[in-house]
């Protein structure tokens, strides 16, 4: 097929040289077929002439004789008594070569037919195997491997611990939920948000007032609490805190109060402030009964806020010294670091909120 298409191309080129502008497809195919048959016949004739002379390899003279055989009515062609080299056919061909212009083939043709190099099946001796039965000599090709014709069971090599898989899944789910929650918070409550994250051991409960719906505090509205007892916690949480206004600290520390509690207890703390917002956090509600009842109010009432502050402060004070000790003891460093980042961010946001409210 490849040879045929190549021949078609060659024939088309010859016709174009002859003067045709266009060719019919079937005409080209016919002509290519004729050309290939001519080639074959010429080869066959030449070969038979060579065999006639007792040779296997063909000669130029054999070819010329073949051309004469296939030639059509050349003047003075088949004369037995003349020298082959002088034949009219040869002279015709020579004339053709001289006068016809050279038309090299359009594209490079690879050597064909291409034989695929197939590696032979190694013999028994080559493989170093002994043939299974005594009647089989070792120089014969070896048998194929049994797995090619016998079904062998396949099992999964990878050890899969279902428990670990489940834990991993749960962890990923929690992570996704957490990021979703934070995104939602960020979108809905710009600037007035204390980062409310539910995570392992760093729950920061926002101030008891609902951060999004609470009206901005005017200066002096909020009670400025003592700074000293809280310093311990600030030391605990962030050594590199920016100094914020005193109004900022209490609310931040309120936020940290549950965190301290959590550190002390070592439990996962739920972001209760945002629980009314999101139902997703239902999954990791934990230890609510252990917490002091904090009023999760949506109202703007100052009284409730003050109550909450007081409650938190009660919490904070007994908790802070032991948690300090604990911190200096064996608090895990990564928790602290995470808390630091989150607390820093929370404080920054709070500071922004305070600035805005003051303005």
């Amino acid at each position, binding site marked *: 097929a490849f040879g045929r298409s190549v021949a078609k191309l060659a024939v088309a080129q010859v016709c174009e040289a*002859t003067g045709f502008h266009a060719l*019919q497809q079937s*005409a080209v195919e016919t002509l290519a077929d004729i050309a290939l048959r001519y080639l074959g016949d010429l*080869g066959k004739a030449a*070969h038979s002439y060579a065999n006639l002379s007792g040779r296997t390899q063909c*000669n130029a003279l054999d070819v010329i004789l073949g051309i004469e055989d296939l030639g059509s009515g050349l003047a003075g062609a088949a004369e037995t*008594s003349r*020298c082959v080299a002088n034949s009219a056919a*040869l002279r015709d061909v020579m004339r053709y*070569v001289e006068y016809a212009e050279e038309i090299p083939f359009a594209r490079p043709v690879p050597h064909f037919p291409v034989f695929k190099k197939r590696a032979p099946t190694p013999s028994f001796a080559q493989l170093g195997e002994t043939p299974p039965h005594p009647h089989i000599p070792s120089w014969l090709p070896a048998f194929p491997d049994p797995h090619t014709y016998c079904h062998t069971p396949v099992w999964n090599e990878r050890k899969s611990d279902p428990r670990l898989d489940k834990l991993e899944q749960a962890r990923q789910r929690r992570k996704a939920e957490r990021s979703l929650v934070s995104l939602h918070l960020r979108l809905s409550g710009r600037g007035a948000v204390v980062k409310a994250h539910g995570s392992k051991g760093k729950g920061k409960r926002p101030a008891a007032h609902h951060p999004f719906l609470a009206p901005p505090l005017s200066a002096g509205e909020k009670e400025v609490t003592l700074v000293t007892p809280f310093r311990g916690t600030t030391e605990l949480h962030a050594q590199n805190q920016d100094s914020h206004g005193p109004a900022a600290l209490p609310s931040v520390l309120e936020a940290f109060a549950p965190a301290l509690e959590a550190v002390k207890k070592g439990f996962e703390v739920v972001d209760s402030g945002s629980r009314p917002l999101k139902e997703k956090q239902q999954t990791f509600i934990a230890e609510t009964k252990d917490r002091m009842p904090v009023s999760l109010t949506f109202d703007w009432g100052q009284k409730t806020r003050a109550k909450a502050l007081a409650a938190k402060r009660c919490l904070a004070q007994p908790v802070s010294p032991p948690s300090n000790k604990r911190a200096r003891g064996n608090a895990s460093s990564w928790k602290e670091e995470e808390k630091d980042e989150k607390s820093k961010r929370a404080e920054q946001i709070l500071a922004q909120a305070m600035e805005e409210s003051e303005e």
Partner: protein
Amino acid sequence: MNAVITHNPSGEPTQVHSDAALLDFLSSLLDYTPTIPDELAEHYLSRSGFQCPDIRVTRLVSIAAQKFIGEIASDALQYCKSRQAAATKDKKGHQHGKEKRLVLTTEDLSAALREYGVNIHHQEYFADSPTAGTAPSQKTGD
């Protein structure tokens, strides 16, 4: 008995001379690249049993084939031109646009090949069924 002696009318020197011409020709073949590629010729020659390590002989074969095809093509061209000339003569028109377009058709090719002894009959048209294209036969209602 008369022995029939067929001797070469051309003497030795001429034979050598013609051999030399042949040799020259063969060497000139190396410069000329035939349109039929060498690989193609070799493939089909090997299929028919032709064996020759000499590339010049293969070139000779391919050139002979090319010449053959060229002759057929030129004959077909003649037919085509004569047909076009006949057409223009009939119409006596200014059909210069049509004249320039020389197309090798199967009709011209078959006419040209007939001289070479190759009979090609090209199907004029293909029909789905024997009655395709004919007028629908009228049904006589009863």
